[in-house]
């Protein structure tokens, strides 16, 4: 036991821990509300004017939509990303087998895979005022096309539950139309999750501080916060 204490002491020097703590607190302080300006600034630095325009349009869309009906918000946001973002796989975009991009990265590069679409839509919906409890990101098994029935692939979509036991509406990048889940026979849900308990925009400090050992999802949330969300 004593040895473990010593190793803990050696592995993480006090200073390192202290500075990490400080950084976390500062980050949380700065990101008490979404900082779209910071996002634009970062977009300018990283991706240039085109990206800034995209972010500006996105910002406008999110703000304009805040008073609208949920269905209208869903539609606008679904259209925004499905039209502006080109599908591409992570290997070509990021040279990694699987990479979860933040909305800024997705909009900056203007391409993404199914997770990137889902993430961007999910975050935009939250910003537009849809409560996290009504939203899920869902791992689904998707049948591609109709003829070779056994051609399936792992896919991710965003589900919106108008009420807790209702049939959810599905926002997908394969099928640009928003349809209730019951009409999406091609999708078989496996597991759903949202940011409840992990991240509530503007209010939540990152839970825990093991930034190096975050799950992919929490890693993404942390990066998003650093980019102003």
């Amino acid at each position, binding site marked *: 036991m*004593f040895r473990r204490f010593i190793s803990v002491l050696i592995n993480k020097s006090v200073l390192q821990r202290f500075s990490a703590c400080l950084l976390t607190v500062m980050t949380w302080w700065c990101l008490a509300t979404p900082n779209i300006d910071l996002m634009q600034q970062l977009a300018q630095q990283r991706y240039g004017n085109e990206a800034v325009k995209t972010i500006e349009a996105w910002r406008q869309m999110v703000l304009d939509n805040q008073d609208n009906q949920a269905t209208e918000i869903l539609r606008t946001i679904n259209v925004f990303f499905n039209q502006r973002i080109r599908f591409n796989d992570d290997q070509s975009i990021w040279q990694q087998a699987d990479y979860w991009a933040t909305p800024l990265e997705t909009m900056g590069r203007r391409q993404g895979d199914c997770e990137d679409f889902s993430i961007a839509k999910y975050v935009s919906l939250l910003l537009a005022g849809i409560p996290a409890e009504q939203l899920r990101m869902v791992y689904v098994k998707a049948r591609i096309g109709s003829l070779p029935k056994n051609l399936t692939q792992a896919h991710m979509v965003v589900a919106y539950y108008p009420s807790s036991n209702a049939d959810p509406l599905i926002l997908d990048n394969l099928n640009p139309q928003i349809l209730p889940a019951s009409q999406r026979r091609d999708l078989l849900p496996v597991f759903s999750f949202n940011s409840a308990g992990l991240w509530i925009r503007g209010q939540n400090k990152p839970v825990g501080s093991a930034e190096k050992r975050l*799950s992919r999802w929490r890693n993404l949330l942390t990066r998003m916060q650093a980019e102003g969300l």
Partner: protein
Amino acid sequence: MSLYKQLWLAVILLMTLAFSGSFLLATKSAQNYLSEQLQLKNFDNATSLALSLSQQNDPVLRELLITAQFDNSHYEFIRLMDPTGSVLVEHGSDKTVFAPTWFMSIFPIEATPGIAQVTNGWQQIGTLSLKSDSRFAYGEMWVSTQLMFLYFLAGALFSGLIGNRLLKVILKPLNDVVDQSKAIGERRFITIKEPKTLEYRLLVQSMNNLSGRVKQLLDTEGGSLQELRKEAETDSITGLLNREAFMQQLSSLLNQGNENTEGSLVLLRLQHLAELNRSEGRDVIDSLLQNVGASLNDLADQCEGSMAGRLNGSDFVLLLPGCEQTEKTAQRIHEDIQRIATQMQLENPLTIPAAASIYSSEDSLPLLMTRIDAALASAEQEQRSCLKMADIHGTVPETCTLECWHKLIASTIENQNCELITTPVTDASKQILHMRALPQIHTETGEKVSYQELHPWLSRLKLSPQLDLQVMERALASLNDTPQPLSVSFSAQLLDDENSQRALFTMLKAAPKKATQLRIGFPEYGAYQHLESLQNLCSELQTLGCRVGIEQVGPDIASIGNLSGLGVDYVMVDEMSIHDINDNNARQIFLRGLCSISHSIGLSVIADGVRTEDEWRTAIKLGIDACTGPYFE
């Protein structure tokens, strides 16, 4: 507070700080580590359980899964709520704790519950939240904290032991330094070996320098005092020893108790000097005296150990140790002096009666002087310059022989009937400082024999230490009655007699309170011969609280530097130095010098043998601190 204690406190403080610091940090770090791990576990377990639950259609199966998970793992609670917030399944553990509450409140392990969504197809089942049980973490932390504390205690003890040894090693030289400074405080100007530690070394260097300078000062001043003393001992006209000086030296020669002491003594008298002074004029007579003095000095120089003296205006004396042909030598000397007188071509011829005697270790000073005085008297009766040999077998009736003295002293010691005669020793305002005790014994006929008379025989018979011990006994006994401190005079022989010294210390240790009231004097002539023994004796006596002094100081004043390392309290100057001090300029200069040098190293000066008011006044004026002698009896 001693340096030792301060260093100890500093060590303890530092160690407590270091240990409690690391102790806190380690516990804090463990707390963070455990919190983090629990947090991750909460998230991961919530997700994987939710994933499993999402694959089940049957609510019973779902509940079973949750129950199985809860029962076989470590959770504080697992809760499944439907989307409206009502609880579907809930499990919570008991509240047994493995660590004290105060400990948990000081080092809380905070981990938020893990939350995950459970669905069945597209249908929401609810939200799963679970929290790992932190009691085990607390228990673990508590145990390790206790362990840490034990390690801390063991470490503290161990470092304490090491520290103790280290401090001893570091402070060892300091003890020497402290001893030295104490010694200097007690007027023992000693030098010690320089320690290796820089700071101590500097300190010791300067104290050694101080001691060295004091010794040097005493040595040089002792030398010049010796010169002054010599002047005081010398007759100003003839350059010969004066009466006191000659008698003192002759007496100490005879008292040495050396069996080989043998030689001749020649006494010459220049008759009618006063009348000649009138008829021939003072200058002529002075030059006659100078010539006689020079001639006698020459003779004395030719033979080692010889000395010549002018006993009074007209009596001259020459001591020739080892000279056996007394008559022949005396005749030659007598003729030499007569020749000088003739050469002066005085109107009235000078008559020089002379006497000579051999002497041996059997003689005492009074005996020898009586014998030779008798011979001179018979020479004088002849009214011409003639030489008479003293009759060794004694027309003078000897009151007591060596054997007789031996018998007397031995019986006194055996019967313990020696008596102490006390004389006050007073300061400048005639306040009594202490009493001086000297032994006195009685002959069979009841006659009193004073210490002065007794002293030569004591040392010759080597009975001094025994009498010293008896004096000590009496002195300790008499301290019961007198409130004043008492001073006693010990013999030089005691310094050479370890058995008697042991007996002395046994007596003193038996009466530690009285020991502090004692002043013990040793004679100068023995002190320098047995310096090492004196040094040991001094330090032992001083630890018992006795004060130590050197008595009969004068003849060997040049060696006063030896006193610098002894820590003696006083010096008592001999009677000769005080004798007629009011009229003797040379002695005044000597005494003034002695006082100033003694005072400069903190010794007080006591004058012995003060006989008159005038002597006393002069002595006090010269800076003598205290006086004793017949004047105060």
